[in-house]
């Protein structure tokens, strides 16, 4: 109980005094996860649209597979990306291991399935009458998709925010790919893991509060956008 109270005290001190290391770790966490979310969005939204608006054999199985991958374990993604980008791996020459860029790749892969799947759900949820209206107005395929995506934008945004949430709260892949290098690849989750292993529980709690705070701000932003 004492430790938890102490943790809150430390958290407030760190935030109020703008502790440079904490700020730096927080900003790095946000940037890495935002970048991953951006890349995943650029891939997932078009792929989700293509899957939704095209009929092809095995479509149902594919959607099922994507939904299964919602539960993709982060350490598995970590292992997979590690094997790819380690120097002995096929992309080793890029020297991406132990870099923020490598972490972005891992997080992008991690959140892709959930974002593709939720994009499909979002597009499916568009009112059928709108689809008919678009068709009857003679919309081209591109205009049709653009119209439906616009209708589904709030649901798609929810997918984006969920993807970001999964990315920033993830620790397994972040520690395997980033290596938790101070001032380089240390993010909130890996810092919490390290501080806990070193017995610095107050610091861990403080970082945890900041992580929660970031999630809260992101969700408030989404709510604000959706309520407009």
């Amino acid at each position: 109980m004492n430790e938890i109270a102490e943790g809150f005290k430390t958290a407030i001190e760190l935030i109020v005094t703008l502790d440079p290391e904490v700020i730096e770790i927080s900003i790095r966490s946000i940037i890495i996860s935002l970048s991953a979310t951006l890349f995943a969005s650029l891939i997932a939204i078009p792929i989700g649209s293509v899957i939704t608006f095209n009929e092809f054999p095995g479509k149902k199985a594919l959607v099922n597979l994507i939904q299964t991958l919602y539960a993709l374990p982060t350490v598995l993604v970590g292992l997979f990306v590690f094997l790819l980008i380690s120097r002995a791996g096929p992309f080793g020459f890029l020297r991406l291991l132990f870099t923020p860029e490598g972490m972005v790749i891992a997080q992008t892969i991690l959140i892709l399935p959930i974002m593709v799947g939720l994009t499909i759900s979002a597009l499916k949820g568009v009112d059928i009458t709108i689809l008919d209206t678009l068709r009857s107005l003679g919309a081209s395929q591109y205009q049709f998709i653009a119209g439906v995506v616009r209708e589904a934008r709030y649901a798609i945004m929810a997918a984006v925010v969920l993807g970001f949430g999964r990315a920033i709260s993830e620790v397994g892949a972040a520690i395997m790919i980033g290596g938790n290098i101070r001032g380089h690849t240390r993010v909130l989750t890996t810092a919490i893991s390290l501080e806990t292993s070193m017995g610095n529980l107050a610091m861990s709690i403080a970082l945890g509060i900041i992580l929660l705070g970031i999630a809260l701000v992101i969700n408030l932003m989404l709510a604000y956008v959706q309520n407009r």
Partner: protein
Amino acid sequence: MKWDSQIVIIALLLAGLLVSGCVSDDTASASRGELRIATTTSLYDTGLLDHLRPAFEDKYNAKLLVVSAGTGKALEYGQRGDVDVMMVHDRAREDTFIADGDGVERRVIAYNYFVIIGPESDPAGIRGTEPEEAFKTLMTEGKAGTPGVAFVSRGDASGTHAKEQAIWKSAGYTYATDVQNSGNWYVEAGSGMGATLVMANEKEAYTLSDIGTFLAYKGDLKLVPIVDSGDILLNVYSTMLINPEKHAGIDTELGKAWINYLISDKVQQEIATFGVAEYGEPLFFAASGKWDVMGVPEAEVTTPVL
């Protein structure tokens, strides 16, 4: 109005990308060399590397990227060519590593001793015995279910874990069959030295630790050293360059500079005094002049890497 929200999101994501670009520029600037070091947890958790780092980074305008892992993991990073330099403490596996052509230019930088840590009350009654004898007693008492007798092992293929296995072997046990799975009293933590000490403390159990990490964590621990003497407890830290002939792109220049920096008189002095003010005794002994104590050739302690 319809597009407002989309613009907000897009702007946000673009901002993220832009800032991400700036951060990358900052950390991967071409003008600054980066040296990737995989280190055993003890050299990192004690704060020694962070203490030695700034002077080197200033002098060579370089940035050290330190990945703290157990010796086993560090060796694996080395085998894959993922780091330039390693700092480890497991002579047997280092020899294999060099024999396999993965490592070159080993230099010994420091040493200290392992200690068997445990509850002050010493429920197994091993205080004052030899390390092997202590392990035998722990096994007997642990298997018999004597209250308070438990052992937390690193269980992570680290140098400390290797030493623990060496002590079991020296005590006449086969690790995989006699020790692992010998009952609930034997716990494999699968984590670094600091985390293992924290766990042993929670469980009021025995564990094997390097003295440096133990002293650095002592303030938060109720455990005390129970067995701290015996030849087998010697703990020698060395550093190696990853063989550039086997792995492309190793920063040999900066790597050699780092190794020579570590064995320089100035840094050896720093190592010898590191922690004295804070903990009342040094966490590490300097390797300089102590090759006979450590049983290594003089050249491995003093000869700079060319």
